[in-house]
């Protein structure tokens, strides 16, 4: 146990150790303010994969690692669509996921926003239309590009989305 605490103190808090990225620090501050202003300090996201390659999911998971720790800014991924404000949708929207994704969207109480994540949710990215792909046809409010978007790009995207509320 002692060893662990030694390690813990030596490592410090990596979230705040942002010498390598001042830009991100400013972004995170602005996000926190905006979430406070528009979502009473709590923005709940329901992530749905409609047929991605799983890299977008890996990057979303990375948002919770000690470097980014998104929860700290008031943004959290929730287990139920009924707890969500935002649906984050990745993937090409396969035929087999079509109705399930729609169900999730319908279960989110209004007001709700749909953010698509990654190139293939927008225009299939490098993929091409096949019999098994339907494509996203839900009302999209914002798109975060990238293949996959890195955690930093996702954070930047979320900020852009929040800035949209000012208009």
């Amino acid at each position, binding site marked *: 146990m002692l*060893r*662990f605490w030694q*390690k813990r103190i030596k*490592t410090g808090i*990596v979230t705040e150790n942002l010498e390598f990225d001042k830009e991100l620090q400013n972004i995170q501050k602005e996000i926190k303010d905006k979430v406070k202003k528009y979502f009473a300090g709590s923005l709940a996201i329901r*992530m*749905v*994969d*409609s*047929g*991605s*390659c*799983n*890299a*977008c*999911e*890996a*990057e*979303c*998971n*990375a948002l*919770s*690692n*000690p*470097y980014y720790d998104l929860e700290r800014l008031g943004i959290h*991924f929730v*287990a*139920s669509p009924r707890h969500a404000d935002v649906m984050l949708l990745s*993937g*090409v929207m*396969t*035929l*087999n*996921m*079509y*109705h*399930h*994704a729609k169900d*999730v969207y319908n279960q989110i109480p209004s007001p709700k926003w749909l953010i698509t994540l990654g190139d*293939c949710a927008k225009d299939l*990215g*490098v*993929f*091409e*239309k*096949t*019999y*098994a*792909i339907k494509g996203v046809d839900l009302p999209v409010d914002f798109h975060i590009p990238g*293949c*996959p978007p*890195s955690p930093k790009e996702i954070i930047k995207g979320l900020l852009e989305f929040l800035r949209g509320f000012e208009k």
Partner: protein
Amino acid sequence: MRLIARFAKDKKDFFEVIDVFDKEIKRYKVDKNNPVLETITTKYPSAIWMERIIKDEFGIEFTGSFDNRPAIKHERFPKDIFPLRKDFNDKEINFAPFEEYHYEEISGDGVFVVPVGPVHAGIIEPGHFQFSQAGEEILHLEVRHFYKHRGIEKMAEGKNPLEFRKIVSRISGNESVAYQIAFFEILAKAGGGVIPESLKRKQAILLEMERIIHHLTDLGFIPNDAGFGAALSFMSKLSEDARRIMAKITGHRFGFDVIKENMQINRKILNPFLDNLKKELEFFEDWIIDIPSLWDRFDTTGALSKQKAIKYGVVGVGARASGIKMDVRDNIFYEKYGFKIQLGKKGEVADRFKVRIKEVFNSIEMIQNMITEKNEEFEFGEFEDGEYMSFVESSIGELFMYMEIKDSLIERFYVRDPSFINWQAFHTTIYKDIIADFPLINKSFDLSYAGNDL
């Protein structure tokens, strides 16, 4: 004999079904007017999904098969089309009326069913798990997949192999490098070239980097599913470090589109990272082994017996944790750089966890031995028509790829992801456990849904 894959092809005048075993390849001609073939599922249980898929894609019926339910054709997928036949070229199909899928369920007094998925509570890929429960004890589990079925095989057909590379990169994100190497090997075979040793080494370095990232992520998530969040914080920091290194040496965090004819790997970036990782991992191992409440959950949980693993032909970490010597890297090339096969004993969550730790150490050692500044030129020749196969040990297990080239274009492309086999054996591991152990067992295998569904 171990079954690697059973898949079909449309040969214009007839269908061909190909069985790939570890020791031989069998081919069957199937009449198009009466597409019937005998099942092999009674001997090879992992052929169940393979045959169900062939039935869905080509309309071939298997006699003697005990599971004829559709696999990729879900409730609203039209059942009367056969998308991998050559005469099917529709890009847009309409939904069919809802047709119920009958899950394998156990019924009885006090027995109830817990359906989980396809959309899960966390940030995970979609798949469905149907549990039959007696209280907390799991009586049966059916794993149902193919929600993410994108029709990759059809997408490949008629394409120039070089153009298809960017899609191969993105079939399964966490195994991208493995997929690219498998495809590269096929292209090299078809192009009549021999991949120079230095290029092979660089490819192998990236493959080991991918494995390190994957294992580190799991080493965090497995304890986290047992309620030990500190390990997740520790490991997700390390895996983020590793991903950033991957981005530094390849220009992409997942290594998409990086396996090329010419590659450079910077020793100055890699070496300090590996030295540090080794130290961190030594600390982690020392620390985590001392937490008895964690091993209480890991030990005896999710046991995959050696016997079952052999029966299903389980591959990768799953097989090695059960004590099976099964690794594509078990060859002269890798041995030269310090490869040592890492085996477990009982196939429990604890074994898979320990195997992952040992494999990261081994990967670090191999990368250190493989780093080379040498730059040998390589170029693909003209692609010759024919059938080509390749095997690569991805971070999950043995990846099998098959491609037929005709008139320099892709005639048939088939991949059997390691997950595809392991998902089918998965249900055999839960019978002595309670439903709360499921996330733990699931994470200890950490299989791909995207690679499985194609």
